[in-house]
């Protein structure tokens, strides 16, 4: 029996659907449950923000979707559906095809996605050639167009430069061009601006937003920064200790957070013009995986907890 697909208009297959996902790590001292019963959908062209403290499980969720979970980590329950088709059970070879073609990734450190020994042009051209049926010259022309599209000045010259000849912000633009070249339906961007300066971050976010609108690409935007979510996402999922605390349209979650954790989180962020004397403080810390309390994982830190929350 399938659970109902919430937050999604009925009768419309979402591009991505994650259902009751559970990720476990078997260890000598027992099994750690890193992700527990997480469900959400992403519609075509939608930007879903995934926010939470470090260790909340954001990256693991992303890795599970694209089939890059590192063993011994494993999907113990639940499913990942792309356009209604399960992809979490696909053999590695077929998953690799999907990963290049239909889902692509952007990571925090642009250098992990770029090969230092090849020019950026060669890397983009090769990716285009693997995924699309066009000739070498056309692929190179497309590479230059893509560099122009992500805002690299003088792209016809820069195409022959190596990654180390670009600044951090420019490299992340190149990575975005690389992620776009197969014209994927979904991009999973894991902290794409965390390593960048604020002025560069603002530009990269604008770029991502514009590109997704133009290409109608959906994005799962993973970040610990609520500001980035507010600027870029349509809906947001708030993770805490491997679970979803809250999911909803960004404006609603930001302006009227429902979950006590989200409320605390929003209050703890300094905001310009708010002139609060003291920030809201959530005492304590997120529990480790081997010490997640029964009931609601947030209950020991929650000022509103009652008996039912503890069981």
């Amino acid at each position: 029996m399938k659970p109902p697909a919430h937050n999604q208009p009925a009768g419309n297959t979402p591009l991505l659907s994650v259902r009751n996902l559970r990720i476990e790590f078997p260890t000598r001292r027992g099994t750690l449950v890193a992700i527990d019963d997480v469900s959400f959908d992403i519609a075509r062209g939608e930007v879903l923000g995934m926010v939470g403290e470090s260790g909340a499980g954001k990256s693991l969720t992303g890795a599970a979707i694209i089939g890059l979970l590192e063993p011994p980590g494993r999907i113990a329950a639940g499913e990942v559906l792309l356009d209604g088709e399960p992809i979490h059970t696909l053999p590695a070879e077929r998953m690799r095809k999907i990963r290049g073609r239909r889902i692509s990734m952007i990571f925090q450190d642009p250098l992990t996605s770029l090969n230092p020994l090849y020019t950026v042009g060669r890397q983009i051209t090769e990716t285009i050639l693997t995924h699309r049926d066009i000739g070498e010259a056309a692929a190179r022309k497309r590479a230059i167009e893509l560099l122009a599209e992500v805002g690299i000045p003088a792209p016809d010259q820069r195409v022959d430069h190596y990654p180390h000849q670009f600044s951090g912000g420019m490299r992340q633009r190149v990575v975005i061009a690389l992620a776009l070249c197969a014209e994927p339906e979904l991009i999973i961007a894991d902290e794409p601006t965390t390593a960048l300066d604020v002025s560069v971050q603002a530009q990269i976010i604008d770029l991502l937003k514009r590109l997704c609108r133009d290409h109608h690409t959906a994005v799962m935007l993973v970040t610990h920064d609520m500001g980035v979510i507010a600027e870029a996402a349509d809906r947001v999922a708030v993770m805490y200790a491997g679970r979803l605390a809250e999911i909803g349209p960004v404006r609603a979650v930001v302006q009227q957070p429902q979950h006590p954790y989200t409320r605390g989180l929003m209050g703890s962020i300094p905001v310009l013009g708010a002139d609060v004397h003291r920030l809201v403080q959530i005492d304590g810390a997120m529990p480790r995986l081997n010490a997640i309390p029964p009931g609601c994982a947030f209950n020991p830190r929650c000022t509103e907890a009652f008996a039912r929350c503890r069981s």
Partner: protein
Amino acid sequence: MNMPAQTPAPVPDAPLLLVEDLKCRFEVSKPFLNRVIEREPRRWLKAVDGVSFTIDRGETFALVGESGCGKSTVARLIVGLYEASDGRIVFDGRDLGQLQSEAERQRIRRRFQMIFQDPFASLNPRWRVERIIAEPIRVFGLLNDDAAIRARVGELLTQVGLSPADGRKFPHEFSGGQRQRICIARALANNPEFLVCDEPTSALDVSVQAQILNLMQDLQDELGLTYLFISHDLAVVRHMADRVGVMYLGRLVEVADSRTLFENPQHPYTRMLLATIPDIKMEGKRHEIVRGEVPNPITPPPGCTFHPRCPLVNDRCRSEAPHLLPTARGHLAACHAIEEGRQ
């Protein structure tokens, strides 16, 4: 039990810290042989290039700016971790470059401390927390008997929101936020008056950041501390600082009290920085254009170093560096356009 403060009577109106035309350059030349073969001159990076500001007693002065603009270098110069190439640092009326004896240096050094960004790297992993916190007390010899030191360590741990029993543990047994509390306890061990805090919460999650910022404010109220607070997060700076200095490529481009700076930014770079702050409450804010990146500091642009990114640039900006001058609004800004009234 508190130690005697041993502070000489302060000059009432003088700033606690005065930094004047501070400069620090690092050599980034290729190795000698390569230089000779490739006929290249020695090359220098001006990490801090003529920075002046003052900090009053009990005040929080913040330095803000993007990566590489020289914030940490200023911090390290003040606490003596780097040597200045030029300029003066005057603490409570005494020029730190002119101290006569080792004893005098020790007496002054005790009065300011630094807290670093990375609470993981700055604690010795093999020492118990009590030894980590006691170390500065032993170094400065303010307390000598073990029982008194232990009592003081317990008091410090309590002050930063941990328990005296935590002294028996090792750093790895604590979370990031708790480790930053330990760093703060260590910094407070000798009753300093002045704390240099270099991105104290940048490595922490926002909810933990709130705990640490609240703690820092409580300690300031309780102990009358003066802070130099360094951050690249403008909203955090607005929340913490009384006055703010904005840095760009080794120089201060604008200095103002916090409210004025955020409500009425004058310098084009400050305006651009403010435009990068996400509109987290989604109230719909005006968007100024953010463009370009910080250039390579080894070969900074001539004239005003911000000119390649500036919407108000003219010929003068390309050749002549602006100085920090008082503006009509009573704060300081280094910009020809402001001076010429063409904004």
